[in-house]
């Protein structure tokens, strides 16, 4: 592993940065959505649920293309953000983070939703009778009890984000140092005549990261059960 080249390091670090930012930004939205899906009944709920899961089943190139249309420079949202807030997504690492965030969102939300659904709502009622306003109930009872699930969701989302390829390359292309993540670097390397060794090294890095994340998610899930049983 010591002979990882600077270019490969750039791709690894960029992947980490993209996946970390994507996960951190997606988490609050993920928690809110998980809560909404677990606890509320409203018109269009199954539609919303389907839309959230769409990136999981849609061809990634379609998701990437839709992101390009929406968040590209001339896209409806992208144009507005660029003109008014100076936030540009297209062909930037921020766009890679957006693509990874969208693609990993279903995986991030699912454990969060399951852990909120598993919470005994009677505990929340008990908190209410002790004088806790609904938002305090959420932050002192619901969220702490769901925390292992929230962390598991973050880890799974991170693992998915770090490996994302199709939507990212469609939306922000494959620019070394800006949008070339581990996956797109591997893609470029295996198309280069003697890129096999470098590709192999990056493949190993991907496997290690993904495996580590899965083990961590499993560990958090076990913690959740312990927490709910009050040991």
């Amino acid at each position, binding site marked *: 592993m010591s002979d990882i080249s600077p270019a490969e390091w750039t791709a690894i670090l960029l992947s980490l940065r993209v996946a970390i930012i994507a996960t951190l930004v997606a988490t609050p939205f993920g928690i809110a959505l998980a809560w909404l899906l677990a606890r509320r009944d409203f018109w269009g709920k199954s539609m919303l649920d389907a839309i959230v899961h769409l990136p999981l089943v849609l061809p990634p190139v379609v998701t990437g293309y839709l992101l390009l249309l929406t968040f590209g420079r001339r896209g409806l949202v992208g144009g507005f953000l660029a003109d008014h807030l100076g936030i540009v997504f297209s062909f930037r690492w921020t766009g890679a983070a957006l693509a990874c965030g969208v693609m990993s969102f279903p995986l991030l939300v699912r454990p969060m939703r399951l852990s909120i659904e598993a919470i*005994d709502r*009677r*505990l929340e*009622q*008990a*908190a*209410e*009778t*002790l*004088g*806790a*306003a*609904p938002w*305090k*109930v959420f932050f*002192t*009872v619901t969220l*702490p*009890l769901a925390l292992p699930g929230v962390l598991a969701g973050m880890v799974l989302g991170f693992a998915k984000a770090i490996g994302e390829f199709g939507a990212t390359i469609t939306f922000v292309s494959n620019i070394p140092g800006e949008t070339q993540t581990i996956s797109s670097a591997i893609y470029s390397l295996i198309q280069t005549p003697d890129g096999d060794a470098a590709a192999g090294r990056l493949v190993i890095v991907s496997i290690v990261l993904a495996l580590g994340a899965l083990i961590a998610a499993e560990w958090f899930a076990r913690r959740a059960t312990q*927490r*709910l*049983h*009050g*040991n």
Partner: protein
Amino acid sequence: MLRVDVEKQLGEFSLQASFTGEGRVIGLFGASGAGKTSLVNMIAGLLRPDRGTIVLDGETVDDTAAGIHVPAWRRRIGYVFQDARLFPHLNVAQNLDYGRKMNRLAPDPAQHARVIDLLDIGTLLDRRPGKLSGGERQRVALGRALLAKPRLLLLDEPLGALDEGRKLEILPYLVRLRDEANVPMVYVSHDAAELRQLATQIVMLKQGRVTSLGGVRLLA
């Protein structure tokens, strides 16, 4: 003083209850399925009546005609559930302190010490609820409700989940609570013996209706 006059339809079951409670301990007596828990949940504010009023110490907490429904968290009505419902992620000390914090009350070390002493839970403070026996859990739940300084304490079959031996272990604490804690209570039970020991007034509930009201002699 507690004045209740409510109606609630729950599926096939209709609850229609009206009574005024003045005693220190209002015993709500009835078989299971008589509507006791639903009635208590309405007093707590966890369940909204379809029609009617609930007035506690002159404050209207529910009045469907006037559109008043004070949410549970603003009622200052304590509730001890049959299944304790301690927060599993907090230890006993944190569970006890929860209500005080939520109501933004200043620490009251004297009351804290008194309640812990009254319920004999001083040695449990560092433990998690998962490591407590059923009886211990129920005592902590009592302490947690009391330390929120409620205006009224609802106890819904607090001994219901305990075996005979444990019941006898907790009962003396409840008697002490009644005599020393100075908080009016509504005590729900289907056990006449329990109520004879604790209640000062009886409300009998049968199939969603109040059938009689009066002293403990009703249970004879």
